[in-house]
């Protein structure tokens, strides 16, 4: 039986985390049908095949360009019927969560979120207590939805070509009752939840005027920028960069923390990173206990040196 994947887009491109979801479904075995909603740039649909998908259902309707929660859930429910799928895989995200929840009720499917590895039969491993523990969960019925965390499986890059089929779902007005009136998005930036490398700054950086060096390091690494909660509370940085218990939870390959003390609530958002580098002038800062590599020194001295060294490596 086919597995359906919700392939989410951002700026008319398929998100990397969604391509990981395609690879995850492919590793589960069987046909993988990815649903792409709204218009996308040329060449984007090819990535579904490369990542392991066998088929794409593309509803290229401009009404679906923005993530309308209710409409997306209805369209995905229709797509599961069309594809004959009883399993749906998607990448956890603020839109993915909101859509998956409604879809699970429509399908009568068991739903497990924050899944970190491939299923073993009907069982999946999920992250709980904000990264402080895992639970092994059994999905009871035949219908299931699995929302995966970033880096649950490696992205497949050697898949074949997927068949693209146009899909014209029936859209009902009631699903568009909550209207998106405008969107504001940072352009050309690596999205924090999607990033393989995150460079994050805390109160130790003293003020928003000092973020230039954080951004330069992030640029040199192709990284996204993040921050601690007080930094976004004081409006030094936008809220969507706030990492931790009450902010974005990231699981990149590398997290670089600059001038962040490592409070337990901050660690909760970063503890599933593969590697952590901490730069803090206080050698006793708790963050060092959670780090793989540490530099106990003034960030204003270390960060520019690190950026230079990375640039030298890139050249």
């Amino acid at each position, binding site marked *: 039986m086919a597995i359906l994947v919700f392939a989410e887009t951002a700026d008319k491109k398929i998100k990397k985390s969604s391509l990981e979801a395609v690879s995850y479904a492919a590793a589960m075995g069987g046909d993988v049908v990815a649903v792409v909603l709204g218009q996308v740039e040329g060449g984007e649909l090819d990535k579904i095949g490369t990542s392991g998908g066998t088929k794409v259902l593309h509803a290229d309707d401009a009404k679906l360009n923005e993530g309308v929660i209710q409409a997306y*859930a209805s369209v995905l429910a229709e797509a599961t019927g069309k594809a004959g799928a009883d399993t749906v895989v998607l990448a956890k995200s603020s839109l993915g969560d909101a859509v998956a929840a409604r879809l699970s009720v429509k399908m009568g499917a068991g739903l497990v979120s924050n899944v970190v590895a491939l299923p073993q039969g009907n069982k999946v491993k999920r992250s709980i207590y904000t990264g402080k523990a895992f639970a092994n969960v059994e999905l009871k019925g035949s219908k299931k939805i699995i929302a995966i965390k970033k880096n649950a499986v490696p992205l497949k890059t050697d898949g074949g070509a997927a068949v693209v089929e146009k899909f014209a779902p029936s859209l009902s007005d009631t699903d568009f009752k909550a209207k998106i009136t405008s969107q*504001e998005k940072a352009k050309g930036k690596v999205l924090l939840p999607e990033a393989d490398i995150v460079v994050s700054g805390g109160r130790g950086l003293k003020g928003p005027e000092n973020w230039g060096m954080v951004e330069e390091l992030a640029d040199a690494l192709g990284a996204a920028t993040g921050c601690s909660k007080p930094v976004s509370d004081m409006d030094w940085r936008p809220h*969507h960069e706030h990492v931790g218990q009450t902010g974005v*939870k990231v699981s990149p390959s*590398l997290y670089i923390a600059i001038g962040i003390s490592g409070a337990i609530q901050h660690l909760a958002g970063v503890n599933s990173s593969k590697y952590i580098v901490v730069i803090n002038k206080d050698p006793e800062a708790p963050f060092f206990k959670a780090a793989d590599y540490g*530099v106990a020194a003034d960030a204003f001295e270390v960060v520019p040196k690190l950026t230079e060294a990375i640039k030298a490596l890139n050249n």
Partner: protein
Amino acid sequence: MKILVCITHVPDTTSKIAFTDGNTKFDSNGVQYIIGPYDDYALARAVELKEQTGGTITVLNVGTVETEPTLRKALAIGADDAIRVNVAPADSFFVAAQIAEVAKAESFDLILMGRESIDFNGGMVHGMVGELLGIPSISPVMKLDVEGNKVKMTREIEGGKELLEAELPLVAGCQEPIAEWKIPNMRGIMSARTKPLKVVEPSAVDGLTVTENYELPPAKGQVKMIDKDNIGELVRLLKEEAKVI
């Protein structure tokens, strides 16, 4: 306006997480319980909305008797009455179905929840309740204003935010900076003791998932400290040892 705020009863964010009984039960030994931080934002916004437009705030928890002090705290912060659905929560759908049953009987105008619980981190209950009731569900919401029947919201999206408009009734999953957390004052604490807390029996619903057991992540190895005058070594380690750049 009749507002329902759904709250979780969860370990304080500084709690050490451990399990007992062959890793099948959460070890609550020495754990302090709090209102979920996101639910606390939802409650704080509900109190502000009530100040502006009048109405009532009901708080609801699906849980066993141990959660009552947490419900009392919500009453102290400003809710008018509380409901506890007397059952241990089994999974997100089970909880959502219980909430939807209560909501159907009481017809609330606005249902506020947290963006996610901090124990199971599902981020799912609001969407499920919205679908069960056939009303919009929006999450994560960082700003929410009500004018008559219209609700204007700001929702966080990756890399930014979007503005939305919808009509009551709806469900919203809240996060900061929707409101500042409120600390109960003495008068609130006194009056909370006598505010109504109704216990209702659960409806017959089956959860769709079963948690078999728990695991803790492997312990982190020793940190390698690098001298500030030898940053080249850090870059080498990231490239050759960690292989992440």
